[in-house]
């Protein structure tokens, strides 16, 4: 049976069916865990259909596995799904992280399991929907929907009494810019009469969206700010640390980064190519600042989760740098690095979760000397750290290398300077990761590690971590496997952006103040 036309619908809505199933099952014993694991594994199986049936021969910029039926006639909203080189691997990644998240929450979540797994699956529905939607309205619906399960996960399963505050902060940070995104979207609809992304991108390429440049500018900022908050990009990261510090491990694994970075490339760059060009120098600068800022703050944290949060900020800023270099290498590296960062970040949070499960603390000062007690844990920690640092042969090296070389080649003002600043981030990440390893696993025994007797990795945890490590290595040495699809998007996007640059009028109208500081 050929399931290509409906595969995306299956992927998006299978977790929803699973969530309904879980809601009906009795919450007894380990039922919830097993059911959630089964659902997420089937979803992973479904997502794997994509790379195996992906047609690399199809022209760049086209979508595959498309499904396009009318949903609401007025306004013209279509149920339009499809993937290309950008979204395909992100969907597989989302599929992969879900069962790992279930495995890692197996014991950590011991009360109100039904609520936890239902919300977790709903979160997956929303993310899959974000990656698959090609109708902007449908996309926005999933985008908004993704806020709810995450907020509830933080509010209900957060670790300290500040969880409700962190949850509401996260929600407000994400919701208010999304409201402006909606205004921008509706304005676009009023101009063009369509929510369909390929159509909008075609109109944008022909400069046919609106003659009103000021309004276009404001709309493009509406898009960019909404996405930047959600990534987060440097000055908009206020929610990140609190949310990461509070959220349960399985939720943190999918909290930041990939959906918003994807949206930037999918929507901001496609619909507002000219405005993106103008704002790119600012974004490059903010990314470089974010890399250094994240690295420096990670260096001085005692709380492991906060360290991980600032490290995440730094890693994500690398991706932003790559994307806004508008070069093939930068875009390819950016997309590849989304995969790497998500995997390495997820593995890192899983390991922190393991430690917390055993010792009940994220405070680095209470640990020390764990290396002799937990040999497997320390091995995994070191491997993950090396991946985050970007050691050659491991996955992040490929991504970071491409990003830095891409941003060196980019045509924007001061790009050499900012790339040089960004490169110091590599050193900083090595510094804070190695410092963390040393403090937690070597040194003399700390209070916690002395007082509590803990067990090393058990079979379930091995099962959750080894796929990650295997992927680190494979993605480090066999990157073309992934790059083939990614490059089809990266090359098309870069050439489209370059052509816009050529046709853009030479005289520059006065820019809004937001991007004025860079010039």
């Amino acid at each position, binding site marked *: 049976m050929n399931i290509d036309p409906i595969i995306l619908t299956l992927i998006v809505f299978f977790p929803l069916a699973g969530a309904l199933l879980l809601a009906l099952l009795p919450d007894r014993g380990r039922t919830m865990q097993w059911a959630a694991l089964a659902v997420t594994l089937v979803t992973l199986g479904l997502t794997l259909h994509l790379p195996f049936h992906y047609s690399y021969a199809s022209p760049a910029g086209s979508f595959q596995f498309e499904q396009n039926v009318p949903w609401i006639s007025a306004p013209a909203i279509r149920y339009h799904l499809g993937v290309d080189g950008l979204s395909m691997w992100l969907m597989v990644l989302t599929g992969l992280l879900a069962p790992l998240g279930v495995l890692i929450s197996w014991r950590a979540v011991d009360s*109100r399991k039904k*609520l936890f797994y239902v919300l977790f699956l709903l979160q997956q529905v929303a993310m899959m929907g974000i990656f698959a939607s090609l109708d902007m309205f449908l996309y926005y619906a999933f985008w908004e929907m993704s806020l709810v399960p995450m907020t509830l996960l933080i509010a209900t399963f957060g670790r300290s009494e500040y969880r409700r505050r962190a949850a509401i902060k996260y929600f407000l940070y994400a919701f208010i810019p999304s409201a402006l995104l909606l205004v921008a979207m509706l304005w676009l609809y*009023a101009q063009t009469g369509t929510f369909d992304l390929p159509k909008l991108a075609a109109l944008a390429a022909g400069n046919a969206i609106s003659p009103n440049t000021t*309004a276009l500018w404001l709309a493009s900022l509406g898009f960019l700010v909404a996405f930047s908050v959600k990534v987060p990009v440097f000055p908009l990261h206020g929610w990140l640390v609190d949310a990461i510090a509070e959220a349960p491990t399985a939720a943190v694994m999918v909290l930041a980064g990939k959906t918003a970075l994807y949206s930037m490339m999918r929507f901001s760059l496609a619909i507002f190519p000219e405005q993106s060009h103008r704002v790119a120098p600012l974004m490059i600068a903010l990314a470089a600042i974010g890399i250094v800022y994240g690295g420096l703050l990670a260096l001085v944290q005692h709380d492991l989760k906060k360290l991980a949060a600032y490290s995440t900020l730094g890693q994500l800023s690398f991706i932003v740098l790559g994307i806004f270099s508008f070069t093939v290498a930068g875009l390819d590296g950016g997309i590849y690095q989304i995969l790497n960062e998500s995997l390495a970040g997820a593995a890192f949070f899983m390991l922190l979760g393991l430690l917390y499960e055993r010792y009940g603390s994220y405070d680095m000062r209470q640990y020390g000397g764990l290396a002799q007690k937990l040999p497997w844990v320390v091995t995994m920690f070191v491997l993950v750290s090396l991946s985050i640092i970007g050691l050659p042969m491991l996955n992040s090296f490929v991504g970071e290398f491409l990003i830095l070389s891409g941003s060196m080649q980019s045509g924007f003002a001061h790009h050499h300077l900012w790339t040089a600043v960004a490169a110091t981030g590599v050193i900083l990440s090595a510094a804070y990761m190695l410092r963390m390893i040393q403090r937690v696993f070597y040194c003399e025994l700390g209070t916690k590690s002395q007082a509590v007797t803990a067990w090393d990795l058990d079979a379930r945890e091995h099962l959750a971590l080894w796929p990650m490590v295997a992927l680190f290595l494979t993605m480090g040495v066999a990157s073309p496997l992934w790059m083939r699809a990614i490059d089809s998007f990266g090359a098309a996007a870069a050439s489209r952006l370059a052509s816009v640059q050529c046709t853009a009028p030479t005289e520059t109208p006065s820019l809004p103040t937001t991007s004025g500081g860079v010039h």
Partner: protein
Amino acid sequence: MPLSASLTALLPEYVLTLTGVLIMLIEAVLKPGTSRKPLGWLAIAGTTVTGILSFYQLHLGVLTAFSGSIQVDAFSIFFHLLIGSVVVATLLGSLDYFESNAGEYYALVLFGAVGMMLMTCSVELLMVFVGLEISSISTYILAGFRKGEGTAVESSIKYFLLGSFATAFFLYGIALAYGATGSTSIAGISAGLGSSATPRMAFLALAMMLIGLGFKVSAAPFHLWTPDVYQGAPAPVVGLMSTAPKAAAFAVLLRVTFCGFPPLMQHRWSMLLWGLAALSMTIGNLGALKQTNVKRMLAYSSIAHAGYLLVAFSALAPAGIAAACFYALSYAAMNVGAFAVVTQAGGYKETLRSFEDYRGLAIRRPVLGFLLAFLLLSLVGIPFTGGFFGKFYVFSAAIQAGHVWLAIIGLINSGVACYYYLRLLSSVYTKPVESASVATFDPTPVVSVPAGIGLALAAAATLMLGIMPGHVLHLANYASSSLRITSAQVPPSAPFTSVTPLTNQPK
């Protein structure tokens, strides 16, 4: 079977009135102490028949009766159905709520509904006034129906005093309009406005009517009564009076705005509504932020929602009317649902009042907690709920009309609104404080079957409006096209499908 026009046109109202009278009569002969539930079922049956009759009228085209003072068109039928559904859901939820005097209660609800329905199908302002009075007087009494509670008396008196003041404004407006234009029918005023010798007085007359209606829909700055009245009134009644009378008042306002104005005055009037909308949204949301009582919070939220609905009034005619109709319906579904949950959670004694009391509701009563969460998310405007599409249509209509700034104000407001809805939501899903939990809850927290049906209907409607809004939107468009629009800015084709370039550029 040919019936006379005056009979056919008001058939739904007749049926409802007769059911109400019947209930009053039976109540009088029933022995004290016998169950009043059959009366409730009778009321529900009567309302259902009314709804069916209204729906049947849809096939009859536009009916006019009583020398042109009644006009039954798709627009009025849309609101008839809305009011009927709200009444059915409210009655289902209150069958097991009242222990005594329930007969009067059912009759009053029906009489109130008759008044509201009359308001929606009258094109003669004096007739509107009669409807307004019928519906107001019943709701004044209903607001104080939890006898013996101090807050109930406060609620009823406050509502009565301020309400009569507001209806007086409305009546005064009618009188002035008659003076200025020589007519009290909407069409007559519309014709008279253009040639009036005293255009200022005519405009003042309409502004006074706006005060009266603004009070009914609790739009700022005429909102001050709302929190106190909602706090004291019985929860099922609040569910009713925060939706149905508002919808009726909005229907009148829609008729006045889109049928009563020659293009010349349209602009000034729409600026007035623009301000009212922005003010209501902002005051409602800011006021709700610091509330600790759930009913007061929902009261402020209803002020804010009145503001969102008013946004549609500043839009162009057919799209704006359709958006307003859709919003009124989705707001009715979610708000009736939310108050049904409040009814069931607290019971007659209203044991759950503050946000703290709601802590852990989802743990003790998971289904109720989930429904509340869903309805709150709809009030926030999260996708796949009716509230989202309501906001979506309203704001896209406003943006198409060039009111980008009003849309921005509205959407920022909906961001602010998240805070208090989420505060309640996260309370519902947090574990209760150990000591205070058990005592405050009813020993028998069982939702009765009819109440469950009412709640399920409201939630299902909210969900359906969020997933498949097409049919209702079609009906709303049909309703809006049945109004005789006087505004000159009518775009040529159907709403939403048309693409009108912006005239006002955002600056």
